[in-house]
């Protein structure tokens, strides 16, 4: 009975915590705008097939309507092969969101496991893990990603793996340092004094404390991931044309940028708007989750 009462207490506290976060987040208009745009982009990606058929509009070439400007029929105009730019942008959102979400999820889980293992094991294991992370950290990031993606043989899966691996050391460092700081806090000592086991302390106290920091970092990394993935495809080391990936579209459009400026403007703006929304969302979230940050 005693146990149940305690559970209820934590439950109400965490739910009011979430409400608090939402209340603080809502007050930040820019971040709300970011959230709304992110939701719109996600919806566009989900319903891409409804908006424009992939095979006939985004991939199939129609030489008779190539390089047209924006019109009622083709909102963003058509590209050098007569493909509808709007259809390609909308389908391209799927690639960018897949990269952002999949890579963040993989490096978050991987980094958390490695960081937690390092801080929990301590001693030699911790030392070895940290030196390996140091080695990853001091290699130039883009070079590491490019080499990995070329080793794994360019394609959706290999970009995801390459970008995820590059992201792991960062999360592992955060988790490790948060865990180490928290384990010395007084309330952990108090929890120990109350006779709670290590598992309960880790899951009940340490993880929730690390989580807000991880969420903020994950949100902040989304924009970077979207830009890196586009850069990889742009230099030809990622998604290959004719796939409508935004970076690959920029690479194709570059040839025509002297006369058809919109071919490099539109995919670029798509990247900027997506990245900016994720950044605004991350900013608002970090303020809402940690009110101390904002004076």
């Amino acid at each position, binding site marked *: 009975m005693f146990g149940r009462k305690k559970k209820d207490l934590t439950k109400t506290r965490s739910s009011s915590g979430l409400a608090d976060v939402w209340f603080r987040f809502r007050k930040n208009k820019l971040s709300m705008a970011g959230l709304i745009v992110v939701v719109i982009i996600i919806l566009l990606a989900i319903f891409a097939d409804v908006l424009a058929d992939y095979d006939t509009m985004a991939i199939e070439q129609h030489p008779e309507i190539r390089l047209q400007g924006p019109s009622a029929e083709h909102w963003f105009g058509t590209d050098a092969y007569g493909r509808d730019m709007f259809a390609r942008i909308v389908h391209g959102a799927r690639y960018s969101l897949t990269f952002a979400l999949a890579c963040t999820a993989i490096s978050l889980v991987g980094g958390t496991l490695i960081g937690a293992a390092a801080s929990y094991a301590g001693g030699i294991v911790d030392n070895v893990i940290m030196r390996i992370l140091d080695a990853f950290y001091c290699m130039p990031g883009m070079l590491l990603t*490019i080499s990995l993606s*070329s*080793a*794994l043989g360019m394609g959706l899966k290999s970009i995801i793996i390459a970008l995820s691996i590059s992201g792991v050391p960062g999360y592992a460092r955060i988790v490790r340092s948060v865990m180490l700081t928290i384990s010395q806090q007084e309330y952990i000592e108090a929890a120990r004094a109350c006779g709670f086991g290590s598992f309960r302390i880790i899951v009940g106290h340490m993880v929730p404390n690390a989580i807000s920091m991880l969420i903020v970092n994950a949100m902040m990394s989304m924009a970077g991931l979207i830009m890196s993935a*586009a850069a990889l495809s*742009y230099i*030809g*080391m990622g998604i290959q044309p004719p796939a409508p990936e935004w970076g690959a579209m920029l690479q194709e459009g570059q040839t025509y940028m002297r006369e058809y400026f919109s071919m*490099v403007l539109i995919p670029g703006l798509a990247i900027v708007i997506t990245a900016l929304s994720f950044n605004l969302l991350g900013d608002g979230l970090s303020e809402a989750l940690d009110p101390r940050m904002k004076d």
Partner: protein
Amino acid sequence: MWKYIAQRLLQMIPITFLVIFIVFAIMDATPGDPVRIILGNDPPAQAVEDLTKELGLDKPFMVRFFSYVGNALHLDFGLSYRTRQPVFDGIWPKFPTTLLLAFLTVTVSTILGVLLGIISAVKEYSAVDITLTFTSLIFASVPGFWLCLMLIILFSLKLHWLPSSGVGSIRHFILPVLASAIPSAAYLARITRTQMLEVMRQEYIRTARAKGADNKRVIFKHALKNALLPIITITGTSFAGALGGSMITERVFGLPGVGNYILTSVQAKDVPVVMGSTIFLSIIFMVMMLLVDLAYAWINPTLRSRFAKK
């Protein structure tokens, strides 16, 4: 102090070893037969056999790894697959271009970023501050290579003011420097603003004001000096990063720098060049981080005792 430096240098040895191992493993997993890269598509069988032996490709992974490390200790990083020249003979001639680009980029971005950050912080919540903050937020979301393209379209193709590619005069460097400096200046301005605002709320700033120090003195002498620490880290990291050549910026502007060279080498699967340059850049990065830490001690005397104890 010297003991601390020696200790840090010693720590670099195992990390460098791990870097070599990681890159070696990645490169080993990369598809593509080096023998075909060197000899072309249809080589005679005897030549293939000889070259395989010469490169040691018939030996197991660990043997090749340790012989690579052994050679690297003698500063022998092997021959480029494409040119059959020592790896660093290919890299050094590209270095001046990259060094100039890195130096200009870091100088411009630091001056611009710190200055704008200070203005933002001093005039907190003013129209200037809001404009600057929002602009820097937008530039933090602009991919570098796209900014390059936009600058080329505006300044080379439309206005015909500046060349879009190649080297030759300092004019060729203006667009690449802008393209790399603007995003990092935007980032630096945000950090500087946050740092300055935090420092400005400290009590010693109030004390300085109470003692009658004028605004300029308070901002530059008292506040900026204390807000400088994270700024130094960012400048150091971005200089180390820029020395590796902003690969994509160099590619877009056709600059014959280290970054462009490495990128071509990765695409051509020229393993020794990629290995050598990654190791080189990682060591530069570690040395840079050491210099950053030493700069901390120089700026903040209270940190000096910590170094002395170690």
